């Protein structure tokens, strides 16, 4: 060992007293314009879908609640918090961000002695680079999810106008997989669905080609999946994260696809089997979505369930209100058949109050549920509307389903009053009947609302127009004109406003703008109400009511301890809301039966 080897460690000490060799950045240069530095997040744009967390290959992102940002429909209220100890600045999170809210500033120099300072929520925890103009923004061509839906095949207007054949084709496997691939599985839609279906999970089942799993997920929350796959109001699609990028996922059509792919036997095989009989008996009045959903749940829980239906076939408004070209009857039959398979006894042609009394139901059962629906059409009460050729849409739709002719024949020329989906349904049904009988369509639809505020679904309005229905907006019905005992048409005024300054329904009209719409029949399609006459005077008097509807608690129980009510008659018209209500009420009845206090 040389003397130098011994001394050199000590000579190094002299460096302690020298100026450092390194120099401060003399230029104070900013990074390149598109440098990937610390994140920026526009938290007002962000919807907390967590797709950034999902794609991060380093597990650097947590979704965290933020004070002042509420959870609401379409926004989880969570925001991404980034751990820069793990971030590798790859920007996949920026490229996948569904709302464009996440980006990266070009600032990357930051010194802090506390390692936890490098874990923060961009846009919430204020940073100097929050407003930096430069940095990495997703280039237009970087899109990791598809913006456009798998197109849906439909029968062309000319071909469908004289037929009640189903218009929509449905997706085949390749189309469904393409559409399912666009879903980022964020689950924001689940809160919006009234019955909270396992949407991301069943879409994943489509991606994986696992239809057994898919259909068992559907049946966990919705025994009307075949029907909802076709006619659901699909509110879920209004909060889908992909709507920020382009078209929302076609959730309804994907549900339908699962139902189209599986056989009835396959569905019955995956259903949860009923538990042992409890010896409790439940009567359900009305075989519509609410009643049958409750029946399905209660039967699986071992209760003996009997459903009494006044008409000759089950399905309620899905059968008697929705036209066949939107919902073929065999789809209803299939859903009902599966509900029957868990032990639900459905008795048709059994009208309560006529065939059996409500008192008898009460005497023979531990609980009674009313799911009556909204089967009476509301009247306009305008002059002339008492004429026999002024009909209610729901009545005519019921005739169409039954295949019975309209008294006096299909009108050659007809005027429909109303701008909702039921108005579209009857207008399009009459258009088909006219085309079949006379080879031409003469249907005029007059709506109170203007085009911008139409109540009917946009596709209904579009398709009705394609089929030759003339749609007139902002027209207020004034009088059904009757000459020599026959209806000749409808007189309308232009609507100036539907609501008054307090927001109450009080249409005001421009009387100078009057029109006459010729027609030998006028159809009222302005809303429905419940026929609750089966209750009888004494019960009607005894029960508590609220604004014409039976008053119920959150579980659907009326003021009588043995009586529940569910569906459209308490919630207003909507299939999937009725299904959700059916579940809710079944849970309430089940709890009451278990406690043995139903009576």
């Amino acid at each position, binding site marked *: 060992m040389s003397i130098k080897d011994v001394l050199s460690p000590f000579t190094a000490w002299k460096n302690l007293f020298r100026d450092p060799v390194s120099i401060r950045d003399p230029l104070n240069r900013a990074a390149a314009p598109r440098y990937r530095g610390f994140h920026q997040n526009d938290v007002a744009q962000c919807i*907390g*879908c*967590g797709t950034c*967390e999902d794609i*991060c*290959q*380093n*597990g650097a*992102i*947590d*979704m*965290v*609640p933020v004070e002042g940002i509420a*959870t*609401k429909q379409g926004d*989880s*209220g*969570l925001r991404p918090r980034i*751990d820069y*100890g*793990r971030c590798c600045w790859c920007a996949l999170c920026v490229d996948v961000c569904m709302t464009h809210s996440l980006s990266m500033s070009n600032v990357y120099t930051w010194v802090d002695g506390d*390692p*936890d300072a490098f*874990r923060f929520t961009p846009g919430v925890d204020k940073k100097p680079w929050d407003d930096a103009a430069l940095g990495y923004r997703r280039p237009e061509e970087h899109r990791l999810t598809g913006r456009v839906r798998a197109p849906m095949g439909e029968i062309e207007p000319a071909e469908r106008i004289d037929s009640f054949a189903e218009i929509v084709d449905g997706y085949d496997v390749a189309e469904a997989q393409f559409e399912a691939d666009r879903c980022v599985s*964020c*689950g*924001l839609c*689940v*809160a919006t669905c009234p*019955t*909270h*279906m396992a949407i*991301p999970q069943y879409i994943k089942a489509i991606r994986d080609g696992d239809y057994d799993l898919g259909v068992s997920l559907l049946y*966990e*929350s919705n025994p009307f999946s075949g029907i909802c796959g076709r006619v659901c109001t699909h509110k879920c699609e209004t909060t889908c994260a992909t709507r920020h990028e382009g078209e929302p996922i076609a959730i309804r059509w994907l549900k339908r696809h699962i139902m189209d792919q599986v056989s009835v036997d396959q569905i019955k095989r995956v259903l949860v089997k009923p538990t042992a009989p409890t010896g409790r008996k439940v009567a359900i009045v009305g075989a519509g979505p609410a009643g049958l*959903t409750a029946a399905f*749940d209660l039967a699986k829980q071992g209760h003996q369930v009997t459903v009494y239906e006044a008409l000759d076939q089950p399905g309620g408004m899905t059968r008697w209100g929705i036209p066949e070209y939107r919902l073929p009857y065999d789809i209803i039959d299939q859903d009902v058949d599966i509900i029957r398979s868990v032990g639900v006894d459905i008795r048709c042609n059994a009208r309560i109050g006529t065939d059996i009394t409500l008192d008898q139901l009460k005497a023979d059962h531990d609980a009674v549920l009313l799911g009556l629906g909204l089967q009476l059409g509301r009247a306009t009460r305008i002059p002339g509307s008492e004429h026999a050729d002024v009909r209610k849409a729901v009545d005519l739709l019921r005739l169409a389903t039954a295949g019975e002719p309209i008294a006096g024949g299909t009108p050659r020329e007809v005027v429909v009053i109303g701008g909702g989906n039921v108005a579209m349904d009857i207008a399009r049904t009459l258009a088909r009947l006219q085309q079949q009988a006379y080879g031409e369509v003469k249907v005029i639809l007059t709506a109170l609302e203007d085009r911008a505020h139409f109540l009917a679904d946009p596709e209904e309005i579009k398709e009705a127009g394609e089929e030759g229905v003339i749609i007139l907006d902002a027209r207020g019905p004034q009088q059904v004109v009757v000459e020599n005992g026959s209806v000749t048409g409808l007189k309308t005024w232009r609507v100036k406003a539907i609501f008054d300054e307090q927001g109450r329904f009080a249409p005001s009209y421009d009387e100078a703008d009057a029109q006459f719409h010729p027609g030998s029949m006028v159809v009222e399609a302005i809303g429905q109400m419940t026929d609750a006459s089966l209750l009888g005077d004494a019960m009607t008097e005894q029960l508590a009511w609220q604004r014409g509807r039976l008053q119920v608690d959150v579980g659907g129980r009326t003021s009588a301890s043995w009586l529940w009510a569910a569906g459209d008659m308490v919630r207003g018209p909507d299939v999937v809301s009725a299904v*959700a209500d*059916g*579940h*809710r009420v*079944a*849970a309430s009845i*089940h709890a009451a039966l278990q406690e043995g206090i139903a009576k």
Partner: protein
Amino acid sequence: MTMRELYDRTKALFPLGELIEQRSGGNNDLVFVTVPAAHLRATILHLRDKEGFSHLVLLTAVDWLEEGQFQLTYLLNNRQQAYDLGLRVMISRDSATMESIHDVWPTAATYQRELREMFGIDFPGSPRIEEEFILEGWNDIPPYRRDFDTLKYAQEKFSERPGRKTHDPETHMRQQLYPDMSPTGK
């Protein structure tokens, strides 16, 4: 000379795939063309010695997992003409091996070492090909292979800072918006 003329001339000698003009507009000075693995050496020697492509800009790979293939891209540059020509060679992903070109361009040895480490593509005879390149002590499948699960690796190898907690959006929304509702009626 245009790239198209060069391509036509070279295609008469070697079984080249179709010409892909990457940089449209201007003078089309970046093109790609596929060539069978067995013809790569002859093709690059010809391009280097007869066509002025004196420089290997880079050698890289793409993992076409679904097709079971690796794509090697040899990017050559003609300094005089300022042209870039990329030769693409498809090789099988199983026991992926390619002839070394370190004797044509010595710099290729470095690229080949990197490809061996990151993709697991072997170049027998290439200098120091067996030595670790940048991944010291690597004991997993090569990380640029697409079946390498980066997230799983990151979670196994790197500890999390204490105090981290995440929330699933769907579950969080249920707790906030409809905590008492059981959709299944169970």
